[in-house]
């Protein structure tokens, strides 16, 4: 794996291999000494042009537990008003001997440009680019789903998510998490239904490998998991995507009543950070079926696997 820019970069075999490596990584994280020598001497640069404490910390922990040297560069504010910063930063990183770059950027396609514009030869891991994709989030969601559903089926679900039914609810239009999840979950055999007001589904969504619905109540009884997306408050009012927070919560929020519409085994997922009371109520977020905290810890294992396959994969394979 030279780069990880989109969930579409992974075929079924590659995605399963990554999830299996993540399982091994997770197993090592249960030990008292969590650190592995795997990436000793390699340098991973976390390049964050956009604030994201959770993702940054998760990647930092992942790289450090593989013994890589980690340089974190937060360039908030110097982002897209002038594009030179991305190119010049790329040249600088190349000169400093970076082996991999983890890039978070507000511009869709920024990771793709960093990987393919000819600015550098460093491996690039997309940690979220604009409203495009966030592949490691999708991987950690798939990892979490796979674990939980496998437990339920007595460990015999096979390696993938064939037949699992997943609803993704909320601001699909602006969500990189939704784009990556639709692609990856489909690759792994799951059936995805996007649920959102029509204003928050992109024109063209009808060509995506999933179903769409405007009726959350109708979808919930049919799913194995519901993935709730964060809704940014600036999307209403001036943004005009929906009339008010109250109306959004009434029609698309996962509250206690809707929680009880779910099948007994179904999971509640959220990539965080949550707007409690808007897209998800406290009752739903804190319920036993919520995997929200588990997703965070799984994130480290999945990112360890991604870094490992990016930097050591060739030798290991």
């Amino acid at each position, binding site marked *: 794996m030279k780069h990880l820019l989109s969930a579409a970069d992974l075929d079924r075999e590659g995605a399963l291999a990554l999830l299996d490596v993540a399982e091994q990584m997770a197993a090592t994280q249960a030990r008292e000494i969590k650190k592995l020598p795997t990436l000793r001497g390699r340098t991973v640069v976390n390049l964050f042009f956009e604030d994201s404490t959770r993702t940054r910390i998760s990647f930092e922990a992942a790289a450090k537990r593989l013994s890589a040297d980690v340089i974190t560069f937060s360039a908030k504010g110097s982002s*897209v*008003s*002038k*594009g*030179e910063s*991305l*190119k010049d930063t790329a040249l600088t990183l190349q000169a400093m001997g970076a082996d991999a770059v983890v890039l978070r*950027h*507000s*511009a*869709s*396609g*920024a990771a*793709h*440009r960093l990987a*393919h*514009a000819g600015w550098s030869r460093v491996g690039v891991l997309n940690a979220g*680019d*604009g*409203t*495009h*994709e966030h592949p490691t989030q999708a991987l950690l969601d798939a990892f979490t789903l796979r674990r939980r559903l496998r437990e339920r089926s007595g460990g015999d679900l096979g390696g993938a998510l064939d037949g699992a039914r997943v609803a993704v609810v909320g601001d699909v239009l602006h969500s*990189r998490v939704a*784009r990556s999840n639709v692609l990856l979950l489909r690759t792994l055999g799951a059936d995805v239904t996007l649920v959102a007001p029509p204003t928050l589904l*992109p*024109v*063209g*969504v009808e*060509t*995506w490998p999933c179903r769409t619905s405007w009726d959350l109540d109708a979808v919930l009884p049919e799913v194995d998991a519901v993935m709730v997306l964060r809704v940014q408050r600036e999307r209403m009012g001036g943004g005009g995507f929906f009339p008010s927070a109250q109306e959004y919560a009434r029609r698309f929020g996962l509250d206690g009543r809707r929680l009880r519409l779910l099948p007994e085994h179904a999971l509640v997922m959220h990539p965080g950070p949550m707007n409690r009371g808007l897209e998800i109520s406290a009752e739903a977020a804190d319920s036993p079926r919520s995997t929200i905290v588990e997703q965070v810890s799984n994130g480290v294992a999945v990112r360890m696997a991604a870094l490992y396959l990016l930097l050591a994969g060739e030798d290991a394979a």
Partner: protein
Amino acid sequence: MSADQTPARTTATGEDAPALLVRRAALLGGEATDLLLEGGRVARTAPGGSLEAPAGARVVEAEGLVALPGLVDLHTHLREPGREDAETVLTGSRAAAMGGFTAVHAMANTDPVADTAGVVEQVWRLGREIGLVDVRPVGAVTVGLAGERLAELGAMATSAARVRVFSDDGRCVADPVLMRRALEYVRSVDGVVAQHAQDPRLTEGAQMHEGVVSSVLGLRGWPAVAEEAVIARDVLLADHVGSRLHVCHVSTAGSVEIIRWAKARGVDVTAEVTPHHLLLTDELVRGYDPVYKVNPPLRTRADVEALRAAVADGTVDVVATDHAPHPVEDKDCEWAAAAMGMTGLETALSVVQEALVETGLLGWADVARVLSSAPARIGRVADHGRPLAEGEPAHLVLLDPSARREVVPEQHATQGRNSPFRGLELPGRVVATVLRGRPVVLDGALVGDDGGSR
């Protein structure tokens, strides 16, 4: 000062141009014909091989070459004054000549904006001194392109530059009252409003065509309706006030339908399409390379097909380049930060050959119409776009339709390296461009290379 009072420069009239005999050129792709050019005019035409060169005349052997009247671009960005780092009148003139153009309309979105007689005269004079191509400045419709009040259209029309095309290109004249007034007002100077049709509210932050590809790429969409709604409004306005309207860079199948309807209804509307919208689609954006970032954006294959058919049936009158050079750094960045626009002067004829001639949609006489006579008529450029016949102005281009060449932007005369056709192999090559009887391009190269001294 009017043009008539300007001290006559020899280069401006061509009267002293030495005689030039073009031998055995396929006139509009037809019969091999000899053309004797003298005094800036076509002195004689005769069957191929029948004319003797007068004493001292230069001879251009044109067997196998197609002769067309010099091309006229209705939509060029020369960037000067203000963005000389992107292009100048000199480098843009060179590019135009190399592309077979003998007249170009220089868009008004310079810095300062071409919204006064002073600025349009400055651009016109620069073009005249350089003398490679006739530069026809376009005047801004509104002061500073701000869309608030009319610029002094009359002053620009009566200036030495004799402006006839008015456009806020780059921005839409979105206010319907202002658009109505502009359409009405230009009637008194035989002018035309060239509208950049783009509803500003529907395209805030827009990055690419809104559709299947934008949904996957997470780039904010520029919906076709934002163009079509403005065109629909404008043809109705033009009809209501009895004015002439020109629609810049039509890019969607829906726009074509509206214009076809308006023409059938008798509205005095004309329209242009760019070479890139005739060849390229939004699928190219998948690699996020900003060389494909342009406004209006690249659309779908269905739109490309509709635009080709529209040129073929005359619904779209003109192919115009929207040549928009940018410095390298404005494209060598992430998509959202990149400038919009593509170069086009030096590839236009090849793209037209590829998209329209080799597909059987147009013959060379039609190419002369869409790239020369129609744009000259719309822009009221009296001595361009004329037939290659005795007594007519001697502006012509000779092209080799059998040549094929790979597009290498580094070899272009424009300062811009942002050609979306980089690496494509396209048919056709401009061998010679003749302005007022004088060759400015010969053997595919600029004559002399000092640009300013001829």
